[in-house]
């Protein structure tokens, strides 16, 4: 069986690290190859986890959007939430799952802003929903975090 996906990408990164970087002619090329290797490591992680992340994210965001739509029943935002959640992704390809994620996250940004206004006005449901949105953002940010070896400040410089 030939190596696939994340494993193959990892082997390409190893090849760069072990064989190409030692032969690089100058510091600039070494730095570039080091960055490409780090990127390949991240691409390998995404290859393996992207579908899981996108599906899990959708499952977590749906109840939040449904509650927001129920609390804002009759509003334009509520209608758009209901219409979007009623749609199935075109396929299970990452590009289609990503497009669905973009659509739901855009709605969540709008819903979050509206929830904050209601919370500031003293609505208890809004405070609870605001906390639920932040818990979602915390969990999502943690799930998306890349595992990487420490990088140099040169590699992170702007």
């Amino acid at each position, binding site marked *: 069986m030939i190596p696939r996906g994340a494993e193959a990408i990892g082997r390409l990164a190893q090849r760069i690290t072990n064989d190409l970087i030692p032969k690089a002619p100058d510091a*600039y090329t070494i730095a570039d190859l080091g960055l490409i290797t780090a990127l390949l490591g*991240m691409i390998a992680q995404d290859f393996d986890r992207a579908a899981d992340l996108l599906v899990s994210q959708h499952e977590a965001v749906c109840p939040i959007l449904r509650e927001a739509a129920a609390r804002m029943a009759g509003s334009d935002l509520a209608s758009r939430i209901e219409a979007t959640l009623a749609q199935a992704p075109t396929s299970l390809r990452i590009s289609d799952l990503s497009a669905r994620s973009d659509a739901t*996250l855009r709605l969540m940004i709008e819903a979050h802003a509206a929830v904050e206004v209601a919370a500031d006005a003293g609505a208890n449901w809004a405070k609870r929903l605001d906390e639920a949105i*932040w818990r979602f953002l915390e969990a999502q940010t943690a799930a998306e975090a*890349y595992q990487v070896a420490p990088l140099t*400040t040169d*590699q992170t410089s*702007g």
Partner: protein
Amino acid sequence: MRRQPYNEIWETIGLDSRETKLRAGLSRFLDSHWRPGAEASELVHVPGGASRETWRFKARTDGEDRGMILRIDPETSLIDTDRRTEYRAMEAAFKSGLPVPEALYLVEDLRWLDRPFSISAEVPGCQTSAEAFPPQHLGKIGQQKWTLLGQIAALDPIALGLGDVMPATSVGTCAMEQLDYWANVIDEDSLHPYPVAQAAIRWLRRHPPPPAQKLALVHGDFRSGNFLYLPDGEIRAILDWEMAHMGDPLEDLAWSLDPLWSWVTPGLAGRLLPHKEAVRHWEAGSGITLDIEAFRWWQVFAALKGLGIWISSSEDFHFGGSQTPILALAGWLMTDRHQQILVDYLSPSSPHRYLRDVK
């Protein structure tokens, strides 16, 4: 049989290498502007510094040999910046006695290198890497770093003549102007929705800081990795002034203390000092007493600004303006980390593990 080096082959068939073209253009420029008969030699492409293409070289005549640094405008970069602002800020800081490379030429005429560029004096024998900080000199470097940042904050940008190259602002409006700028960058350059960034923008708008204690020269990217130091720990030059502007000095302090710059050593600001010590040195250098409430706003802003830079770099990479891998890496990894930092700062249920006592 001797193999012909690639650059000789390119020259033979008329396809000069980048280095060869730069050497020729620079030599013509030096001959015209520095010393008759001068030539550029020993060009080395310097890694890092994604906002400009940077080369180290020797400017050489019969009687003189001087190390110089060439910074060329890129076709795209992490930060869309104004070369004239960068150059003038460096020049002003140098004249004020701060350790800054001497700005030598700002050239906007395209006939020399096909793109605008600047040349500054090389500061030899130094390095920038935070990973290579000599462990025995961390305190010394940290003390200088934040004292120098305080000294930058103490400068009067209007008196330095920077009012004609930097956007006008005021102590009461500078914070929201910076927020508007970076919120706009995020809105324009986002390839995907960023709910954390948008929540941070709303939080910053709902909790405006008090007016700045003074209008200061803000470096804009003052952090470990952006200054040159000697092996004995002496800081010799503050680099990368491309985001310099006038504003609240707390902006620079918050950026310098951002958790991203101490990711692997969370207890040491910029991998150098405990945060409280860093702030104490900054207060001594600036003469400003830190306002904790205002600083809290600038901390959140610093993480948002970082996110804006990384989102913008992703957009550059995605649309193919540059294949520089640092743009992609910044776009993926640094976006990821600054989102973690913002969630930590703002989420009601967060343990706030990135919020450090600064006073």
